[in-house]
């Protein structure tokens, strides 16, 4: 698969990716929904490229009898189940050409079965990220003070979240921005001042809004540290707390309570909370403001269908199903991704309802997988 219709893969991908990046940038200047035919044309262009040049995806499409000849609507693009990211390297062209290599956390299938998302061109990820982030989190401001409660990206840590937060910091961070790594919980327990306190105080003193980014767990732990240290800072109007990941990895954690407490502690109203929904397998994100039920909205190059888990037919608005995303920022891998997440469509937004519970084995039949793992 060195060529796609006579054009080398790298050139074909670069041309399409550049076209998409320009469209993403244009949206930031004029943030309106895309007409269906615009999205469809771009999605089908990406599908054709991926069918031709993404070897495992090509094999999959062939196996299920789908080719560009019979895929004529964007809804008909065969989605790659997230399990495919755990089995193969999905990239247009040669995996060696990937600029970035992200690994999933293994929340669904365990650490032994982490998925990989190869990103052929980091610029596409950046272009997809910045406009919607500025729109959803910075209220359109060019830059803001940003405090990231997450370790910086390192190839060895292969976290797409870390890369995303770094990119936001680089492109949108005003002077006074930075990372903090120390766990607030540990600092509080050790009787030390939690990291980041100086950034809070500096923002308050300068009267400049501060945007705090982190996983729901990290923000929760950090606030526990601040709270234990008796810190109370009133952040300026316009400050935001962006959390992502929800209660993943910690049973009993409730986002509303955890983020609500943090907002209270920083003197911020409920609408200062922003939740980000992203996946390693996608390069675009959705955002929702506030607490409670979250209506997640994304840019026009990210569309999501809610499907019946068995038939994969589209569920009517408001009904639960599994989420299938079509993300044009994934032009270098697969645009259509079938997840194991449950959700429902609410107008032009999506409500995320958690993972589909695993199949409970019926009766006394045995999974030999367990035996093989036990033997390993």
């Amino acid at each position: 698969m060195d060529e796609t219709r006579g054009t080398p893969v790298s050139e074909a991908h670069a041309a399409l990716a550049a076209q998409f990046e320009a469209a993403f940038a244009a949206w930031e200047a004029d943030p309106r929904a895309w007409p269906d035919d615009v999205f469809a044309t771009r999605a089908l262009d990406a599908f054709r490229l991926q069918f031709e040049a993404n070897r495992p995806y090509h094999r999959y499409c062939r196996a299920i009898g789908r080719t560009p000849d019979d895929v004529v609507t964007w809804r008909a693009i065969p989605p790659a189940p997230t399990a495919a990211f755990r089995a193969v390297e999905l990239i247009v062209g040669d995996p060696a050409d990937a600029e970035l290599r992200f690994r999933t956390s293994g929340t669904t299938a365990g650490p032994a079965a982490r998925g990989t998302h190869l990103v052929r061109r980091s610029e596409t990820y950046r272009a997809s990220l910045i406009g919607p982030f500025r729109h959803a989190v910075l209220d359109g401001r060019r830059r803001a003070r940003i405090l990231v409660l997450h370790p910086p990206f390192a190839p060895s840590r292969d976290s797409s979240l870390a890369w995303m937060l770094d990119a936001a910091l680089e492109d949108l961070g005003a002077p006074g921005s930075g990372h903090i790594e120390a766990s607030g919980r540990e600092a509080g327990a050790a009787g030390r001042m939690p990291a980041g306190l100086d950034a809070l105080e500096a923002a308050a003193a300068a009267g400049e809004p501060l945007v705090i980014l982190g996983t729901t767990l990290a923000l929760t732990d950090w606030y526990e540290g601040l709270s234990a240290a008796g810190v109370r800072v009133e952040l300026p109007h316009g400050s935001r707390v962006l959390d992502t990941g929800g209660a993943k990895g910690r049973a009993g954690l409730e986002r509303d309570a955890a983020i609500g407490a943090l907002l209270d502690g920083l003197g911020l109203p409920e609408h200062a909370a922003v939740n980000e929904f992203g996946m390693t397998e996608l390069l675009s994100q959705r955002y929702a403001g506030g607490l409670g039920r979250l209506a997640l909205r994304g840019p026009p190059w990210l569309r999501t269908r809610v499907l019946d888990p068995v038939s994969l037919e589209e569920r009517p608005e408001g009904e639960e199903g599994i989420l299938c995303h079509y993300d044009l920022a994934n032009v270098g891998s697969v645009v259509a991704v079938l997840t194991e997440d449950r959700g429902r469509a609410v107008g032009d937004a999506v409500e995320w309802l958690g993972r589909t519970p695993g199949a409970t084995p019926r009766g006394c039949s045995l999974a030999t997988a367990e035996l093989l793992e036990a033997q390993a």
Partner: protein
Amino acid sequence: MIDTDRIPGPEWLPGLPADFDPENRLDGRTVAGAMFWVPQLTDAEAIMVADAVRSAALAARRTHRAADVVVAAGRAAARLADPSDPYGGAAREALQAASGCSRSAAAELIERNAAGWTGPVLSRLVRSELGELAVLDEPRPDLDRPGRRRRAVGPPVLHLVLAGNVPGVAVSAVIRALIVRSGVLCKLPSAEPWLVGLFARALNEENPALAATMAATWWPADVPGPIAHEWTKRAGKVVVYGGPEAVRGIRSRTPPSIPLVEYGPRVGAAIMGPDSTDAELHGLARDACAYDQAGCVSPRLVYVLGMKSEAEVRSLLDRLVVALGDEITRLGDVFTSDGEAVQIRAARARYQFEETDGALAFGPADLAWTLLYRSRPGAYSEPLPRVLWVYAIDRLEELGRLRGVLEGRLQALGIAGVSEADRRLAEELAVELGVSRVTPPGTMAWPPTDWRHDGRMQLLPLVRWTDLETAKHD
């Protein structure tokens, strides 16, 4: 939805006052999502039921012989098998709602099981394991030992923790417990909670004194509550059927002083040689689709043995694909839960995206069946409905190398289309691996009543023996 006018609640709880009106009810959900409700018993009520069952069982030992139990149980069970009987109609409807299968598949499930519930078949089971039926009533001469008589009987109360994966099998377990003259306290399976209660009601019409020797209800496995504790404490023996979670849970809460008989999870496999006929492949498909492949006898692993070329493999797979499609057409509706759908798609994806080991995946978009093939030996499988994990092996010795995974875990082994020499080798391997039944494809999913489940007898583990010696013997 279940029509509660035609199908009573799953519970059968003798010994409670006539005006019993529970304060609360527990709600459960079957595999296919049908709701059911049972009364939530207080400690005192749970004890009342257990004591009533024990008293009735001890009384029935004086008033009934084992042959009477066989006859009454056989008649009650026959009513479940009869579609024109109200209990037979209700059984079909309940099974359909519980498992999401078609009406005809529900009928087939009940009728196939009922073949093992007749008086003659039950009598044969007793003879094969205990020698004669009357040994459950009175001491019987031991023909090998002059001067010695023997008596066998179950404990006054058996606590059965039933599995609903193979509809009807729970009724078989209850019948066996009644035959050994025990009172029976059943924990019903949520997968299919109704058949045992329908059997109890039919038995009540045939012989109320015997129906009073059994009780059945349901509680959530993860919240066993006081009833589970009281019923376990009062049992002379606990018998558990089910998956690893169920077995582990019961093991952890059964006091060491109470014997526990476990029938845990296993898996079925088939060895299909190059001479496998279409009939044998259809038989394999039928076994794999029966009760959604949820039984330990259901073939899940398939080894295609000694194929000479990839084309030969492909030809066999193509014929198996046709057989699976035909079987689904024959069955009508099949049910796949949301979680199962996600996992089947994930399994298919691994085979559809990977190029290694000649991976191939077959199956319709509606997930009615799935065939996953690799051109090398393997033993990986997941307990998903109507999914066959097929591996190629050149020689049976390759299967022997998987001994560490398969030994003691294979329940049934189907063999077809192999040479006589390979058949003998495969049978020998089955014995070494602890397979409990080797049989042609097409009969794997329906073991006979006197099959040695998990390689053990079915009545013998339930009874205690007393030898009565009146003369010196050598």
